[in-house]
């Protein structure tokens, strides 16, 4: 999943939509729907900038920055 504006704090914006969808995908994973997802987004700007949206989602592998890794 490529997510622009993941951390942008605009009420009702794309970031809110993406974070909601990630939450739903995490719930689906807990219910046995195994979907391996790599999240491709801009890296956090700084430490402590806010709640990390992917922290609680075990089914999502974050990938920040310029290069997107090739899964093994």
């Amino acid at each position, binding site marked *: 999943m490529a997510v*622009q504006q993941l951390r942008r704090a605009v*009420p009702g914006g794309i970031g809110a*939509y993406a974070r909601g969808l990630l939450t739903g995908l995490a719930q689906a994973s807990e219910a046995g729907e195994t979907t391996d997802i790599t999240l491709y987004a801009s890296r956090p700007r700084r430490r402590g900038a806010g709640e990390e949206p992917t922290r609680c989602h075990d089914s999502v592998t974050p990938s920040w920055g310029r290069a997107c890794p090739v899964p093994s």
Partner: protein
Amino acid sequence: MTRAWDHGWLGPVPGFDIIHSVSLAAPPARARRGERTVVTVHDLSWRRYPEGSTPRGRRWHEAALARARDSAAALVVTSNLVAVDLRAQGVAADRITIVHGGSDHVVAADTVRTDTVLDQLGVHGEFLLTVGTLEPRKNIGRLISAYGLARPTLPEPWPMVIVGPDGWGPALRDRGSQAGVIFAGEVADPVLSGLYRRARAFAYVPLTEGYGLPPLEAMRFGTPTVVSAEVPSVHDLEQSGVPPARIVNAMSVEDIAVGLVAVATDDVIRADLSARGESYARARTWRAAAQAHIDLWGSLA
């Protein structure tokens, strides 16, 4: 990242079965290797309301939409309204999947921080609330004018609290000198939840919208809500039944004012909208949205 994709500084993303971009900002596709791309199109607002976008923004959205239309295996939209717009652009109906957004992303209200913020704003009782970036499409200027009409007819001069970051367009903060209008700027999510819960009524009257999460968020807290007819999260095309919010004409200051007064003062309307709105919002879940995505990806893999 978006600019890097647009200019080709970042190439196709290798090694995946499906690449799903949750907005028109999408990496380039590499279809010959069998990778499938999916793009979520949240709205075509730059076409429905061109004055609501900058010329540069319109050019970017047109180019990005053309790329998605020509290369994506599937397009996800959040409403029938956007599906109709895409079909009008020549996208076949079987390439479009409608997935409604949820409301269960809202965090618990922090009542202590909310009280602190309200105290700092000088709000010590009931208030009306709206949320949105300060930009022309959100129609906040017309909402402020409507509030000016409504305020003298309210039982008390309840203020209108406006939450959201600065965007672009006519300087709305100048309107903060209008009696009762309070700009709160950006607030933390737990405070926003607290404001939703505490507000006497919530108003959201954009000129056009692809979906509209904020009214769902407010309704989830049982707050009586007034929205413009252009908010498909509440009142979509081809949607039957009585809307769970008061629907008003976004272009009519008078109609918005009447709607504001009704949801703020009429106890029968308030009780009805509070109950039906909360039920409606709680039925929209991100688990259901995720399942729809998983099903779509499975059909493409």
